[in-house]
Structures are given as C-alpha cells and as structure tokens.
C-alpha cells in the first residue's frame, strides 16, 4: 500500500446516542461502495449508556491502522468526551460538527483550533417522530463524504429490519434531514474513486477472521471461557463449528478449557481455545502438559492491557514474555503473531497446520486492536495449510508413541486404533511413554521436542520482510501495519527503510533473521510494551548486527505512524 490518502472520522456520543452504530454503519456504506476501511471503538467504563467514540478510517486502498489525527469529528453530544482527548487527535484543519445544546466543546477541540460548525441535531431529531440525533449525524457525514442518503440508510435498515417499517422510516427521515443540513458545510476532503477490482472483498473483525482461519486449518472443537476481548472468537465459533460438524463446549474456567482441548486433540480432533492474558496465565501449566505429551492444540491470546486484570478494553503487546517463556522446564513450543485483521485468518490457519504437523501447542498472539477492529479485506486465498497429523495406523509391532524419528515427529496413535494403546503423560517418559527419571530418556525426549520444531521448514511465512535500506525497523503483531505506513511516508522523503516483522516468534529462526538483517547499519525496534519485551526477545534469540534503538510504549494509546515516521527520520 502506498501512503494512500485517507479520510478519518470520529463520531462521539453517550448515553444511548448510538455513536458506535453510526460509525460502524458508515464503514459498511463506504465498503459496499467500493472503498476500504477500518473501524474501531473507544469507550467509557460503563456497560450501557457510557460515552463512546466510533473511529473510522477510509481509503481507496486497504486500511490496517488508525490515523495520526482525525479529519472530521462529529459530536452527537460532548458528555464526558474529554476522556477521549488523548486518543482522538485533531488538527487545525479538522472539521468539527457540534450540537450547541449538547454539552460544552471539549478541550481537545478548542486546543486544536479546529473549525467548528454547529448543527442542532437534537432539535432536528425531535421534529421527527421517533427521530434520533445520530441519524441526523449520519446524514451529515454521508453528504460530506459523498454518499447518498440511500447508501447511508442501507446498513441501518438491515439492523432495524426486525423493528418494522416505522423505525426504518424514522431513520430515513433523520438521515435526509442531516443530509439537507450538510448542504452548506464546506469539507473539501474527498476520497479518490475506488479502484475497480474483480477481487471479492469481505468485511469482518480480526476475531472473526481468527475463527475462520482455525476452521480452515481443520479445527473442529473449541472449548470456551469468555474473556474480553477474545469472547467474540468463541461466539462466532459456536454456531460456525456446528455448521461444519464440529462442537463448542463452554468450560467452567480456563483451566477446564485448555484441558478440554487437550482431551479432544488426544482423541484426534484439532482443537482451539481463545483467551486473553489472565486466561493464558491459567493455561500455562496445561500448555506444558501438551508440550511434554506432544499433543497439538491452539491457544489464541487476544492481548489486552496488563498486568493482572489490566485494561481489558485496550490493546497492548505485553503477553510476549509469558507466551515465549511462561512454562516451567524447557518446553519448546510454537508462538505466532498475526499482523493485521486479514492476517488473523492466515496466521491462525497456519498455526493450526503447524501444531498438527509438529504435535505441539501453538500460541497465537493477537491483540484487542486487531481482534475487535472491523475492516474490509480482499477475500483471503484458500491456502493448503490444513492440519495433517502424522498418525499411527495398522500397528503390528510394539507401539512406541514417542519413538525417536529423523524429523522428531513420531506417529500418534488415535484412541480406537488397535495396538496403539499408550498413556500420554506429562511425566518425563521413555520412547514408549512410560514414566522415567533416567538421564538418557530425558535428554532424548528434550532433544526430540526441540529438534522437531527447529528442523521444520517454515518457508517465507516466518516473517514479513519488505524493502531495502540500511535501517531496519523490526516489529511484530498489529504494530507492523503502523510501521509499514511510516516507512512509506519516509520513502516519500527519500529515506529507505526495511521492515522486518516476524510472524513466527518461536522457534526462533537465527539463520533467516541474519539474512533479513544483512547489510543493516541501524535497527529500530518498535513495540507496544512498557518492559521492551520484544527488544529483549530479539537480543535473547538473535544476533543484532548493528546499533539498536528501542521505541516501546505501553497501551492504552496506539503507536501512530507519525511517531514511527519521526523516529525513522530523526535517526540518520
């Protein structure tokens, strides 16, 4: 994606104003009309009626990160909107639509020197039977962006289809009034005409993409314990697994959930659970069991602010340590991290394939930003990564479950297979699987479990490596998209930089990383943590052949492309 022009809109409101619905609906309108977009939300602490902001970025090209500032801000009301001051940055050229009767302009507007246009949305809504101010707002924004009232109404009509014609008509009337009110408003930002494309496109969240990736990879069982921001993966999987002949079981806690998927996988069914930091902490012991007993499972961690209960509704990248180092003992396993909403599908599918092929647990580190963002993506190609476990069949000799093998992967007997009976164990075991404390077996099995992962050919998917230049910007997860945009901006300034973003974090790929960093004279590491976890991980596992600067900041605010761009340009 070139540094493509985009328009960013923030819609703020509270107490049932429907700000999020408005923003989400605009996303659908724009994407149906051929544009690309990304939509996220930011919220107050209440469960209902809280202050909320829908954040939308539209472009002719795929959008994978939020903007440095917003071009258009609509305040359905300003109650407690000051809470979003740090997150909704404005510029002097930002247009702010404000209802003069719905609260004082927040400091973020006045301090930015933005242009304010007053529209009495509440009053206009009152004049319509069952009118709502957010529909007025929707009509205004639709016009400013160049959509018709019909285009704006379509997603709303779908949402209201169960409420009857009168509700839809009220929304329609509101949109049209707003549309009319926007006639005199000057907003000269225009989206470029969408590029004609025969590619089929989807609109979905990272969490949904994760679920679909798992099913594409062969997962047919999920155990579920809800936790923000992962619950939507499980809620999407519940009916979806049933449709494809699978099952989802709700567990009483995360300890049960991970053990359930181990049981299902032991029985031959690829299995997954999804959680966040606190849940992953509970699952660590059983992840060690799956490692030792060589049972493939998938654990998706949709990372949120930590530590402990942390900030459940915000994104951060600070579960890297526990994913990589959390298990007691030496327990090599798989850790992967998607890099965008779209990549959530591929990476989860690939992780399923790898877990099954290597008979090991895979932790997939997604995050709240990707998980809960909704974006338009190209329909992901069907790839051949479908879980194919090496299974023992037609067993005629004494079966050894953990027999040493050239590639470290010993065929697994699935219960029901005659002659393949064995007891899977977390205890250190012999090749047959019986418990032992002998040094020979212990070493042999440790080698086996390490070597099977390290010897595998992961191909080019292990990392995104893009561009040239003697500056390498190394990052991972959702920050990848931000870095990519920053590098594009730097390129426009004539500065070349290389992006290196590993998708496979464990096992480390020292040879491949050395090749990726060949010729590099400066390394900038960018991550969303307080403790520089990724920087330390890089130093622990890789040779970093040049001076390193670390740009790490914890949540809750996303790192912006502008900040990374500045970090790039300032280091010459």
């Amino acid at each position, binding site marked *: 994606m070139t540094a493509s022009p985009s328009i960013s809109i923030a819609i703020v409101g509270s*107490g*049932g104003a429907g700000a*999020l619905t408005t923003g989400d609906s605009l996303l659908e309108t724009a994407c149906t009309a051929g544009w690309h977009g990304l939509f996220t939300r930011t919220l107050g602490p209440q469960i*209902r*009626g809280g202050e909320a902001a829908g954040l939308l970025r539209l472009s002719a090209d795929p959008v994978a990160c939020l903007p440095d500032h917003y071009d258009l801000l609509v305040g359905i009301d300003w109650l407690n909107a000051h809470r979003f001051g740090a997150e909704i940055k404005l510029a002097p050229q930002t247009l702010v639509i404000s209802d003069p009767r719905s609260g004082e302009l927040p400091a973020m507007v006045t301090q930015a020197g933005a242009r304010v246009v007053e529209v009495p949305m509440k009053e206009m809504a009152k004049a319509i039977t069952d009118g709502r101010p957010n529909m007025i707002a929707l009509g205004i924004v639709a016009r400013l962006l160049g959509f018709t009232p019909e285009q704006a109404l379509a997603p709303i009509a779908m*949402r209201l289809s169960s409420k009857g014609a009168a509700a839809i008509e009220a929304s329609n009337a509101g949109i049209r009034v707003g549309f009319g009110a926007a006639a005199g408003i000057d907003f000269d930002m225009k989206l470029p005409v969408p590029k004609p494309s025969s590619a089929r496109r989807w609109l979905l969240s990272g969490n949904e993409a994760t679920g679909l990736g798992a099913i594409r990879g062969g997962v047919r069982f999920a155990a579920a314990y809800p*936790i923000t921001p992962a619950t939507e993966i499980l809620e999407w999987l519940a009916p979806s697994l049933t449709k494809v002949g699978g099952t989802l079981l709700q567990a009483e806690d995360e300890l049960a959930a991970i053990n359930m998927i181990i049981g299902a996988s032991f029985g031959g069914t690829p299995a997954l659970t999804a959680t966040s930091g606190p849940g992953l902490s509970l699952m660590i012991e059983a992840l060690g069991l799956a490692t030792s007993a060589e049972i493939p499972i998938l654990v998706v961690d949709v990372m949120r602010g930590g530590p402990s209960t942390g900030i459940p*509704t915000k994104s951060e990248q600070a579960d890297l340590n526990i994913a990589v180092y959390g298990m007691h003992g030496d327990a090599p396993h798989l850790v992967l991290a998607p890099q965008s909403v779209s990549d959530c599908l591929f990476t989860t599918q690939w992780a399923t394939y790898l877990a099954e092929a290597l008979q090991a647990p895979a932790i997939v580190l997604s995050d709240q930003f990707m998980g809960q963002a909704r974006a338009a993506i190209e329909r992901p190609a069907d790839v051949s990564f479908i879980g194919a476990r090496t299974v023992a069949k037609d067993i005629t000799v004494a079966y050894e479950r953990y027999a040493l093998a050239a590639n470290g992967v010993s065929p697994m007997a699935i219960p029901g297979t005659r002659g393949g009976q064995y007891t899977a164990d977390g205890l250190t075991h012999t090749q047959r699987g019986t418990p032992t404390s002998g040094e020979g077996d212990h070493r042999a099995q440790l080698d086996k479990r390490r070597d099977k992962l390290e010897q595998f050919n992961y191909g080019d998917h292990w990392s995104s490596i893009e561009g040239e230049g003697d500056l390498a910007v190394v990052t991972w997860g959702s920050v990848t998209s931000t870095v990519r945009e920053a590098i594009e901006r730097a390129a426009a300034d004539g500065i070349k930089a290389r992006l290196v973003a590993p998708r496979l974090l464990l096992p480390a790929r020292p040879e491949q990383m050395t090749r990726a960093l060949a010729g590099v004279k400066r390394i900038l590491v960018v991550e969303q943590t307080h403790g520089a976890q990724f920087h330390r991980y890089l130093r622990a596992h890789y040779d970093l052949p040049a001076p390193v600067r670390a740009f790490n900041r914890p949540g809750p605010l996303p790192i912006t492309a502008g900040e990374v761009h500045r970090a790039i340009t300032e280091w010459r």
Partner: protein
Amino acid sequence: MSKAPAAPKVANLHDLLAIAYQIEIDAVDRYNLLADQMETHNNPELVKVFRDLARAEGIHGEEIRRMAGDFDVVNHARHIGKFASDSPEEADLGSAHYLMTPWHALQLSLKGEERALAYFTSIVNTAKDPEVKKMAEELVEEEAEHVNLVHRLLRKHPEPSKNWADDLDPPVSQE
C-alpha cells in the same frame, strides 16, 4: 424471612415525628443515589430531575423538624426501628434505567408519595393516642398535597414513546 416488623412501632407522638422525618431523609438519599447513577450514565436531564426531587424531600424533612419544635426528632430517628425493606418514599431502584425519562422518574415519585399517604392513613386508622392520630391526620394532608404536586408535574412531562429504551449500540464488556 425477616422477623422484623414491616414498619417501626409508633408508641407516641415523638415516634411518629421521628418516623416521618426519617421517611423524608431516606427519600433524599435515594433520589441522590439515582441522580448519581444518571450522572455516571450520561443522562443529565434526569440528574436534574432527581436532584430537584431530593431537594424537595429535604424541604419536607425540614418542615417536620419545624413541626417537632424543641424535640430532637433527628436524634430520635436514629434510635427508632427501621422499615423492613424500603421506607415508603424510597424510589424503587429496580425501576431505574439509564435511558429513563422525567416521566419515569415522576412515576416513581408518585408511587412513593402514595405509599407514604397510605402509611400515615393506616396510623390514623389504628392510633389510640389522640395526639398521634391528630399529627397523622396532618401528615396525611401533607402527603396528599405532594401527590397532587406530582400529578401537576406529570402533566408537563408526557409519557415517552414505546421506543424510549432503544439503544442501537450494544452493551460493553468491561472485563
């Protein structure tokens, strides 16, 4: 099941005045609690309505103190038994809603005043002490005035349409 009586015992005039005072104070606290809820949930119109109701109940409480003359009704109220659950003018917490309208608040207030009216009426009907009976009759008149006041306020705030609780945005999981 609680063994406490539904209402505290009225042995004499002082008890009655103390209970009447406490009823108003309980109402003040309850309306302020509701106002706080409305404030947290971005319903400024209802913040004002509930604060106004709290203020009005506070004034009623002051009137009862005045009626009590030298008798320290505030102190006596502390020692007297409590109502087993909500006291008559405490608005029902379970009926609150973050999108509630002034009409809803006034309905709660109306029910409170009617309950207080019924309570004092029962004292009139059962009191043996003539002083108590006389004071209870006065309190009945007071409450009747309050009931009418709420009715007048209700005429200014019509019942909202059936969509008053619609919120297109979904609930948020905070943890």
